């Protein structure tokens, strides 16, 4: 509420009091002057006061209230002038118009003076014509009406100017005070905002610090747990490494021994392989000799076969000759018979001849028997030759098979020789690798020993790390405590 409004609010009570006081004044004046309309004037005055009070009650200090209350006040003065009709003080009562106009300046509204002055002038003018006793005790006078009107308007203008000026001054002062108040409020608000911002910043800083501390603690706690777990894992790993290194060392020693044994075995195998290669070479040589013998035997067999064949052919030739001899012996025998027959026909003279014929016949028989013997012998020879040929053929076949077997054996021996050479190479490489493996195993053994030492160092480091982790945990707790207390 502005100062003008506050003044109007307070002035409203004053003016309402003045209106009701005027009503009382009307009653008193009516009784004092003895007018026969005292009660009517009093009633009208109270009605105007009630109207203004009602409007004020409804509208507050609205301009309607200001206009209605102002005109009601002037109306009461009009009634008061009526009350003093034909009274010596009637002319003096007119000054009450000026007094009430001055009182109405309390509304701080220049707009009320013009209607009020208009009401006063109209009232005077009309009554001066119609009922001059109501305004002027000495009779109607237009000049007096104009004089009063001039005075009233001069006062109304002066009051309007003064009220307008006063109102502007109040508004200016109020604006300045409002500006000062606003500035003060702004300064106060700014101070409060600064304080609030400072407090908020402090709270936010505290919250951020707490959040950072919580986050830091959570993360550090997580890291510490991880470190503890890692340390435990590291410790167990180092123990496993130690065990593993020990086992590796033991296994390395065993492997070293095995490697040496393997080297010895490889060397032995190499020697055996060399001997095997020599044996295989001898086998190859023997096989080659066998093949050569087989070939020679085959050649000889062929020669024997040819010889037996010639023998068989000679036996056939002999058989043919023997057959010819047998034929001759048969012819001889037949001739001896014919000679005996001829000798018999010559009797005693032919006896000698018969004897010769007998002898020739006996020789022919012997020759035939001998021929048969020879024929049987030749058959036996032929049979033996055939057997010899078949045996030679079988032998030839066997020699062929033997030759094939010898070739296959030679091939296998060659393959075996090549395999033996490969085995020898591989065994030689294996021997070299064994030596290398032995060296590596020795290195592994050394490395395993170093790994065991390293595992020991790791275990010691894990222990130190666990101690440092616990110390770090303590330091972090102290640090977080200081941050939260900040």
């Amino acid at each position, binding site marked *: 509420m502005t100062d003008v409004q506050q003044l109007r609010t307070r002035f409203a009570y004053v003016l309402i009091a003045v209106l009701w006081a005027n009503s009382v004044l009307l009653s008193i004046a009516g009784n004092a002057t003895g007018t*026969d*309309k005292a009660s*009517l*004037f009093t009633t*009208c005055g109270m009605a*105007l006061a009630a109207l203004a009070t009602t409007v004020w009650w409804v509208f507050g200090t609205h*301009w*309607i209230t*200001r*206009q*209605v209350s*102002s*005109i*009601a006040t*002037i*109306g009461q003065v*009009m*009634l008061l002038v*009526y009350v003093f*009709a034909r009274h010596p003080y009637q002319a003096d009562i007119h000054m009450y118009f000026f007094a009430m106009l001055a009182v109405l300046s309390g509304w701080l*509204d220049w*707009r*009320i003076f*013009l*209607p*009020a002055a*208009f*009401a006063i002038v*109209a*009232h005077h003018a*009309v*009554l001066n*014509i*119609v*009922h001059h*006793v*109501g305004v002027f005790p000495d009779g109607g006078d237009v000049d007096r009406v104009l004089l009063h009107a001039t005075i009233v308007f001069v006062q109304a203008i002066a009051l309007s100017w003064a009220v307008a000026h006063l109102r502007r001054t109040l508004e200016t002062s109020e604006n300045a005070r409002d500006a000062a108040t606003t500035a003060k409020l702004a300064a106060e608000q700014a101070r409060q905002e600064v304080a609030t911002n400072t407090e908020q910043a402090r709270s936010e800083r505290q919250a951020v610090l707490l959040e950072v501390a919580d986050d830091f603690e959570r993360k550090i706690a997580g890291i510490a747990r991880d470190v503890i777990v890692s340390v435990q894992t590291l410790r167990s790993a180092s123990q496993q490494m130690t065990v593993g290194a020990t086992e590796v060392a033991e296994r390395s020693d065993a492997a070293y021994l095995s490697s040496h044994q393997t080297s010895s075995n490889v060397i032995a195998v190499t020697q055996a392989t060399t001997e095997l290669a020599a044996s295989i070479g001898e086998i190859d040589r023997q096989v080659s000799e066998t093949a050569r013998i087989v070939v020679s035997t085959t050649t000889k067999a062929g020669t024997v076969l040819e010889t037996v064949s010639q023998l068989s052919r000679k036996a056939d030739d002999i058989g043919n000759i023997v057959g010819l001899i047998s034929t001759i012996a048969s012819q001889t025998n037949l001739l001896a018979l014919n000679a005996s027959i001829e000798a018999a026909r010559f009797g005693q003279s032919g006896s000698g001849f018969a004897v010769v014929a007998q002898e020739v016949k006996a020789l022919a028989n012997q020759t035939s028997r001998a021929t048969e013997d020879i024929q049987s012998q030749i058959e036996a020879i032929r049979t033996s030759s055939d057997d010899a040929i078949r045996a030679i053929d079988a032998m030839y076949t066997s020699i062929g098979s033997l030759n094939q077997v010898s070739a296959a054996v030679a091939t296998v021996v060659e393959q075996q020789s090549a395999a033996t050479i490969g085995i020898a190479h591989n065994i030689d490489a294996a021997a070299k690798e064994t030596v290398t493996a032995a060296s590596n195993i020795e290195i592994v053994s050394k490395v395993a020993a170093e790994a065991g030492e390293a595992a020991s160092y790791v275990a010691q480091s894990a222990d130190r790390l666990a101690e440092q982790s616990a110390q770090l945990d303590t330091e972090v707790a102290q640090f977080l405590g200081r941050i939260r207390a900040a």
Partner: protein
Amino acid sequence: MREIAFGALFSLVVALTAFLTAAWPVPGRPVASYFPPETPASQIFLAISHAGGRLLEAGGDPSLIISLGTGPGYVAALYRAGAWFVVDASFARLCLAESGLAYR
């Protein structure tokens, strides 16, 4: 401007009210009654008589009559008799002057 116009109109209303208040007839004092112009004078006089009043003055215009009634319902009786308005006789001075009569 709106406030001034309203104030001026309300000023006229208040001035008229004050005027009517001042002109309000007082029992026991002469009143001026104004009847419709076509009303016969005999009817007006008869009405005043029936209301218990007595005629004080009558001008050339029979519609404006100054009379005096003693009863409390005299003014109301005049209105019932057909009077347009009844005021204090002193306020009829101008009308009487114009009608050629003088108010005593």
